[in-house]
């Protein structure tokens, strides 16, 4: 029991692994690279004449404290996930709107005629949705281009991406619900009897889920290194 001496290199790597937040594939790559680098450093120190224990301690000391490295890595994790979310948003939301517009204009969605007032409301809401997704897509492309900058605050850009995605998706979902409530008879017909309509609803739900998941991942990748919610995300691996 008394000989359970923890290898300082493994302890350091484990601390880094615990502290990072973000996409697990990227995190695994980071941890692997650092572990390799420390192993190289230990080897170099051993070639220089140090014994195994001293070489490991030297490698860890040269590396510096994990707390100094985590914010730097967290910037990269947030920027990477933010870029992915922004590109998804720029493509998926306009594509979805285009799909619906196409279905409407080709007459695939014809059902029982709607009341004129309801039809006007639906039309207005559809316009609003097009506008929201257009603005969101342009904003997302702009933010994505900011993630290629070497300077600046990548985490702030990533946070803006997440907020843009969540508000765009939220507004589109709200107006979609409103459209279906206002024009319930047609919506019900589409949902129960038209295969094309069912497919459109399913595709919409999938897009909303995909975008929401990407936005939530982006928020997670912002990390907690300098945030107030250290306790909340202390455990999930």
């Amino acid at each position: 029991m008394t000989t359970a001496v923890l290898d300082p290199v493994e302890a350091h790597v484990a601390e880094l692994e615990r502290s990072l937040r973000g996409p697990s594939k990227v995190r695994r790559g980071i941890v692997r690279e650092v572990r390799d680098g420390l192993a190289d450093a230990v080897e170099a120190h051993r070639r220089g004449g140090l014994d195994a224990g001293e070489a490991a301690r030297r490698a860890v000391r040269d590396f510096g404290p994990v707390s100094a490295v985590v914010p730097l890595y967290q910037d990269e994790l947030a920027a990477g996930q933010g870029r992915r979310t922004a590109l998804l948003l720029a493509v998926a939301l306009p594509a979805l709107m285009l799909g619906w517009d196409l279905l409407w204009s080709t007459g695939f969605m014809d059902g029982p005629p709607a009341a004129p007032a309801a039809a006007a409301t639906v039309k207005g809401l559809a316009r609003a949705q097009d506008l929201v997704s257009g603005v969101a897509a342009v904003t997302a492309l702009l933010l994505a281009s900011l993630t290629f900058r070497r300077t600046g605050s990548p985490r702030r850009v990533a946070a803006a991406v997440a907020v843009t995605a969540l508000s765009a998706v939220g507004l589109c979902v709200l107006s979609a619900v409103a459209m279906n409530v206002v024009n319930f008879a047609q919506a019900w017909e589409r949902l129960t009897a038209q295969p094309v309509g069912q497919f459109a609803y399913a595709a919409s739900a999938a897009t909303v889920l995909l975008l929401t998941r990407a936005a939530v991942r982006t928020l997670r990748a912002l990390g907690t290194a300098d945030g107030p919610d250290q306790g909340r995300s202390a455990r999930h691996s």
Partner: protein
Amino acid sequence: MASRMPSPRSWVDSLLVRPDAVRGHLDGLILSVLEEGPRHGYAIIEALQARSGGALDLPTGTVYPALRRLERAGRLSGSWSTVGGRERRTYTLTRAGRHALAAQRTDWSEFSSVVEAVLRPPRPASEPS
């Protein structure tokens, strides 16, 4: 040899080149080291130390995230490959990285010549020691 406890060398090095003085130039230094060809993380660190004659003593841990940042900015491309029988993440200078390095060299030589011109003592070699 093995019982050398806390080596005083890194203290001396830190006095020679303070890490915070290096940080602003780290990107350029890394690009410069990669100009000769692709390298993995620790090889980059060793090259930085060798080229500076051991005077460059920054925490090695800050080099790895800097590599990721340069990769994100398109100045390096990183990929896993087998080097010496081990899987390693190797970095290569991109065309944009080459341009950035050239620009940084120009900036630095202009900046350093200006600072040197100002710092140079007005009457050289006239002071008694």
